[in-house]
């Protein structure tokens, strides 16, 4: 449920950011419901409760040992995996690592360019991992890895009809996000910038519009480069962040996992706290009343 207007920090349409006494604005005074968001602020997707609002992609880690350490450092409870041809030389261990970490598996359809391929891959993932959850990716272009909107929507509809819990990787397009939610997707996962680009959130205004457009959980799915990007996503109203390359390809993946975890928590708190509106001119934080006159 979208509890506040998407806040890019710009002036909001109504009832928001009313000027209150400097420094002590209460939650009620700025038009937001008074609600604390301490620990216990769980994310619920399709009835499943997640304590962590950071989803972790497993691609790109230099080793399974570092992946395991990064999972622990991230606090994530749900991690993505891909399905690929079995190579007898390397099989088995990834699942064992994830089992040992006690995390849930979110299979993806990475590498699919058509709705048909994505649907078959989702069904294979359901067989392999005994989960109805699928991170749906239908890619339209090899260079940008941007989603193919018509194929994505078609695949989403078919998979929802087939009983899947569908989490689609989508463009930062509020209309497409709404269409995906309308066909029954359990969440929408817009990109901030191209997969693996580390360019952060290129269009925060669209993300805020998506926040307003859908009531299902909103997960930022691509483009995170470092901790501040994750904090911004949460401040803009995302319910969670999925980070992969930002962590796995960092110089120190385990430390970056810890950093992005903290950023997600900070951004969530800040969102709930209700930021002050941006203003062009200064507003004194010290009262002018009682100012002495030194003649």
């Amino acid at each position, binding site marked *: 449920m979208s509890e506040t207007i998407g806040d890019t920090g710009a002036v909001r349409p109504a009832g928001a950011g009313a000027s209150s006494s400097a420094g002590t604005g209460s939650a009620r005074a700025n038009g937001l419901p008074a609600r604390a968001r301490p620990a216990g602020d769980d994310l619920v997707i399709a009835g499943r409760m997640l304590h962590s609002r950071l989803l972790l*992609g*497993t*691609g*790109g*880690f230099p080793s399974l040992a570092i*992946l395991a350490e990064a999972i622990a450092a991230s606090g994530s409870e749900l991690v*993505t*995996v*891909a*399905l*690929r*041809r*079995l190579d*007898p030389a390397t*099989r*088995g261990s*990834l*699942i064992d690592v*994830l089992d040992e970490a006690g995390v849930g*598996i*979110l*299979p*993806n359809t*990475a590498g699919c360019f058509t709705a048909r391929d994505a649907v*078959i891959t989702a*069904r*294979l*993932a359901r*067989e*392999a*991992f005994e989960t109805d959850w699928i*991170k749906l*990716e239908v890619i339209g272009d090899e260079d940008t890895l941007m989603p193919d909107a018509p194929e994505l929507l078609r695949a989403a509809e078919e998979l929802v009809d087939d009983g899947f819990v569908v989490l689609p990787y989508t463009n930062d397009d509020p209309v497409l996000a709404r269409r995906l939610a309308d066909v029954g997707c359990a969440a929408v996962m817009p990109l901030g910038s191209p997969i693996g680009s580390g360019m952060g959130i290129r269009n925060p205004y669209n993300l805020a519009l998506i926040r307003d457009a859908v009531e299902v959980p909103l997960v930022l799915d691509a483009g995170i480069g470092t901790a501040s990007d994750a904090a911004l996503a949460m401040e803009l109203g995302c319910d969670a962040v999925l980070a*992969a390359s930002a962590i796995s390809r960092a110089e120190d993946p385990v430390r970056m996992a810890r950093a992005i975890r903290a950023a997600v928590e900070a951004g969530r708190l800040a969102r709930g706290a209700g930021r002050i509106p941006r203003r062009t001119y200064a507003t004194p934080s010290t009262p002018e009343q009682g100012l002495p006159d030194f003649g």
Partner: protein
Amino acid sequence: MIRLNGADSDVAAGETVAELLARMDLSPQARGVAVAVDGEVVPRARWGSFTLAEDARVEVLTAMQGG
């Protein structure tokens, strides 16, 4: 010739999916494994009974780091 994961194989027509998997040291309970034949999912429950045709294209897939 049966194709296995994109390569020619010496798997004979008439073998079941379970027999093919056994050649790869995979038991019917193998975790994180899925099989498609000619673009269709073969559910685990049918691995023992599903026989491969002469020109079957078999994909045996498993978990890999990604996403």
